[in-house]
């Protein structure tokens, strides 16, 4: 046996599956709770009750969570955080957060600081650092009692010393403060890297609470196996890493659901619509893998430097607020409070789920409680939902031909009528837990990186690809299914010989047979 548990903690539901190899043995749905932890405990309890297995036989638990993406999208659980950009005099009129949505910028507080310093492309100093200026910022951070600070300096991928120097100074004065350096997010592109570091910083206290909760939940149900968290590219990270880099989970939900939808239907090319409690994520499976975005992906309206699947997110889900006349749906959602706050469940918020119940597409809650809804409200609201999702599918498909659509997630009942863009529409068994299935089939990844003289670039690159692939095999992946997913190259300055830093990432599916015997 190679039993694994895949869990998806969404905004509304916490789903869990027990898989044995590629077979789904048990799938259950629980509710996400405000503390998250008790929802996971409940899901594990249901799984243990429904499945005939011993906890000691479970090799690994893999958790995918949209908690961190949702926190950004809904502007909640975010800790006021400072951003310190080291780039003056450049960027004076293009300050950090310049293109952020107003409400998200406010959620992090008005704590934008700019310092002189940073590097030029050739590694030379852009401007001398000014100690007094840095100390004034540090005192402001202290006075405002900020616990989380992101630091971004211009050309940090070439030389991160200005970020490290400020961080050391800050740490010395305020030892307890959490610091995120933009250089840990790689890539050239100051605004995107700065945004990634700042969002990550604002999520740190929440990440600590969430990951602690996951660990307590596993312990509470006697699971002593390793716990992994899904990253945005479908690979796994351990819990210590997840506490420090919650932003790396952005889009892990869509990645898991896309892969889960592919596994459940066998389709290799399709548009996947994942309808959750708060959002609908529309992505594309191409040749069996999530289609990646070529540009920096926006999270909650903010451009970031992450490599992620090309996902269009709409603020439409089962818990979306609906206006009295049905013309407005979302983006606010009752989230995990759907089963209390929704009208059909005795609450007083009209939600998208109430519309589906009133229309007879869904048989949960108490239909009588929504019988007073005007037929025009129900019709208009459902038409808004169908129209916006249809339009999103149209934007995502790669030609005007009808496209195969796979509906997954907990809110598929919101879409009961035909879609003009769709050819075949799949509603696979276990569709509601596609994310958890994707999480349980997560891949393993490994990187290899080094500096090389430009003249030896080709040979070194080939060697790095080999090294990264070998590391993925060592981590338990199938040797013949390894693929190189990323090659990143940065010219390094201050070297006598022209030099580049090369970084290669290889990824492959876990060898389940080997796990069984291992």
């Amino acid at each position, binding site marked *: 046996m190679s039993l694994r548990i895949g869990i998806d903690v969404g905004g509304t539901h916490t789903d869990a599956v027990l898989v044995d190899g590629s077979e789904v043995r048990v799938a259950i749905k629980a509710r996400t709770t405000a503390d998250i932890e008790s929802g996971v405990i409940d899901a594990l309890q249901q799984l243990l009750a429904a499945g005939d297995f011993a906890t000691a036989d479970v090799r690994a638990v893999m958790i995918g969570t949209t908690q961190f993406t949702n926190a950004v999208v809904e502007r909640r659980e975010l800790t006021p955080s400072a951003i310190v950009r080291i780039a003056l005099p450049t960027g*004076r009129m293009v300050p950090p957060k310049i293109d952020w949505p107003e409400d998200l910028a406010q959620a992090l507080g008005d704590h934008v600081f700019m310092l002189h310093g940073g590097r030029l*492309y*050739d590694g030379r100093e*852009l401007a001398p650092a000014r100690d007094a200026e840095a100390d004034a910022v540090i005192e402001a951070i202290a006075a405002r009692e900020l616990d989380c600070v992101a630091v971004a300096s211009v050309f940090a991928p070439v030389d991160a010393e200005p970020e490290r120097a400020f961080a050391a100074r800050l740490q010395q004065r305020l030892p307890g403060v959490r610091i995120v350096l933009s250089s840990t997010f790689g890539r050239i*592109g100051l605004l995107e890297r700065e945004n990634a570091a700042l969002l990550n910083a604002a999520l740190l206290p929440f990440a600590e609470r969430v990951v602690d909760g996951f660990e307590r939940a596993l312990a509470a149900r006697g699971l002593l196996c390793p716990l992994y968290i899904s990253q945005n590219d479908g690979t796994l990270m351990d819990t210590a890493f997840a506490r420090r880099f919650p932003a790396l989970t952005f889009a892990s939900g869509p990645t898991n659901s896309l892969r889960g939808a592919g596994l459940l239907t066998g389709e290799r090319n399709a548009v996947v619509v994942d309808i959750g409690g708060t959002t609908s994520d529309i992505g*594309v499976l191409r*040749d069996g893998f999530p289609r990646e975005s070529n540009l920096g992906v926006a999270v909650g309206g903010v451009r970031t430097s992450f490599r992620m699947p090309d996902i269009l997110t709409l603020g439409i889900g089962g818990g979306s607020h609906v206006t009295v006349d049905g013309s407005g749906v979302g983006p606010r959602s009752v989230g995990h409070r759907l089963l209390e706050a929704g009208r059909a469940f005795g609450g007083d918020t009209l939600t998208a789920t109430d519309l589906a119940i009133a229309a007879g597409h869904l048989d949960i809650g108490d239909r009588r409680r929504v019988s007073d809804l005007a037929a025009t409200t129900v019709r208009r609201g459902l038409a808004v939902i169908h129209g916006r999702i249809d339009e999103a599918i149209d934007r995502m498909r790669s030609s005007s031909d009808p496209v195969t659509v796979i509906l997954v997630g907990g809110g598929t009942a919101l879409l009961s009528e035909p879609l003009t863009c769709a050819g075949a529409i799949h509603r696979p068994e276990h569709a509601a837990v596609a994310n958890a299935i994707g999480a349980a089939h997560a891949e393993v990844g490994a990187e290899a990186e080094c500096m090389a003289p*430009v003249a030896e670039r080709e040979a070194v690159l080939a060697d790095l690809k080999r090294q990264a692939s070998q590391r993925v095999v060592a981590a338990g992946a199938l040797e013949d299914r390894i693929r190189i997913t*990323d090659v990143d190259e940065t010219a390094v300055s201050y070297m006598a010989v022209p030099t580049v830093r090369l970084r290669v990432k290889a990824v492959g599916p876990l060898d389940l047979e080997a796990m069984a015997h291992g």
Partner: protein
Amino acid sequence: MAEDFERLSEIRAEDVADLCLGSVFLATGGGGDPYVNKLLTEAALRTHGPVAMVSPGSLADGAWVLPLGEVGAPTVSLEQLPVGDEPLTALTRYEAATGRTVSHLIPFEVGGANSVLPLVAAAARGLPVVDGDGMGRALPEAQMMTFAIAGVAPTPAVAVDYLGNGVTFDTASVDDYERQVRHLAMAMGGMIFTAEHGMSGAQARDCVVPDTLSFAVALGRLLRSRRGEARALLTELQALFAPSIYGVVRHLYTGKVVDIDRRISGGFDVGEATVAPVQGVGEPLTVAIRNEYLLARSGGRVLASVPDLIIVVDSETCAPINSERLGYGQRVTVIGVGCPPHYRTDAALRVVAPRCFGFDHDYVPLEDLAAG
């Protein structure tokens, strides 16, 4: 007969995103990432209102037209932000240095960031811009501008760096000017702003590549509203380009980026991208880069070369990809577009033919090359 695009009489804040998108396509990989300059330009147009735009043919003899823009390596523009007031500073310094009153601004090139920079200064000073540019595309060097080819002197010119340092140039030839301004860019962080090739309305009427800003807005609008597979969009692109100064649009290759070797050298982004079939085997395509995509070759044959336009777009969305954004694994479609007739004269080919960039290839117009 394809419908002609609309000539705009002003650029509004709402047009800037389309102008940038269309410009990135026409920039053939160069011109710099327009994102930050788009933010600056939208802010300027919201503060000061729309910028009036006039067609080059309507310029009076006595008008004084000043080209403005940034010079350097596009990769730098992803990382190093402008201060924000450079275009206005360059204009002010130019007027102070020359004693002239500038009546109109114009971009060097309709390319990436450089299409919109004159708008920032034009909005702040209430000046109109000319609907056109000096390239109809982007190209890496000053002597390649139609202004220079027509004999407009590059200097007196001024350059402003990120520290606010100003430099005035007075050179004998455009080649000397290019060498000096390039070295200044390298010395001062890889990116500077210049005001150069100032000219009378009479000169501008002769050498400006006309209507390219309006065309870029129309192209951006098409790419945004018809986001979809590049090959499927080809017919619509052909219909838009056919009646314009560009003419032919041709599909060259579709595949996946398997290698991108690129570095900053001599003040330029220099390198080569290799695109191979997504599945199966086949001759790969290589695209030579010097800020712009200059030469596309496959199986020993040239499929398109400078001065014709080579454009790399995302295969799925048809979004154009600047050379500094090109990365491993991207699914791309490579498209060739004919250059404006300004570049097919003997005088122009002496400075923009493939041999000017070190390629062992004589220019053959795109429509006369065997198709890929």
